[in-house]
């Protein structure tokens, strides 16, 4: 079941790329589409940050992940590289759990 989902998601992601290279230019050149599509990852990534930090399953929780997120926000504001951001957040959570 999981693999079926993975395969379908993979096929969809690839099809979207191929469609961009193959479809007539004017189909995707509608200004509303041009405006909307870049907004989707922004909203989804922000929602992922929020849900993965403040929930476990269907419950809202406030734990060390919130502190780790604060550290990650500081890191991205300082324009730290990707791996530094992730490592700083993980380290924060690990250290706070040791306390």
């Amino acid at each position, binding site marked *: 079941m999981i693999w079926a989902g993975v395969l379908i998601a993979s096929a969809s992601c690839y099809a979207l790329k191929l469609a961009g*290279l193959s479809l007539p230019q004017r189909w995707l050149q509608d200004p509303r589409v041009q405006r*909307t599509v870049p907004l989707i990852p922004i909203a989804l990534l922000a929602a*992922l940050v929020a849900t993965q930090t403040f929930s476990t399953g269907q419950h809202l929780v406030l734990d060390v992940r919130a502190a780790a997120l604060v550290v990650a926000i500081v890191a991205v504001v300082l324009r730290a590289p990707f791996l530094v951001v992730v490592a700083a957040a993980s380290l924060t959570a690990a250290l706070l759990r040791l306390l």
Partner: protein
Amino acid sequence: MFTGASQFALVGVIGAGGSVWAGAATAALLGSRNALYGLRLASLLDVRGVRRVAAAQFVLDETTAMAIARDDPRQSRFAFWATGFALFTFWNLGTLAGALATHALSNPKLLGLDAAPPAAFLALLAPRLRSREPLAIAIAAAAVAIVVLPFVPAGVPLLIVALLVSLYGLFGRAA
């Protein structure tokens, strides 16, 4: 699937207890931007047939950025293919290493690894927030996701957010 944000999202939704289909839908929605990248790259790359089928797999944030930053089309094409090959190789080697290494980890929480995915999503998000509107959308999306989370199955908050932002983009603003 070779597009990082979608991979992380699929794993994230399933890991949080969401259905694999909610995860797959989120991954595909995150991948929708690659269609627009493909559109921008199509005239630049001018690929047909088998080369287009191969090039499509390399249509990503990174390859698009590298390709459109060049003035000369030949350099653009070189930047696209070189970035694509390098990323494809090392990304997948890294994924394999990760898949093998996790068996050695007894409790990922002890290493703070449950704090890694939100930080990774944040790092992917940050470069897109250079002006006021994206920042407002990001904050609103996070708020909506948190508010609806207790009432719907895991993964579904993301789909609600995607629907709302699409409606906003298509109908919400004056042209």
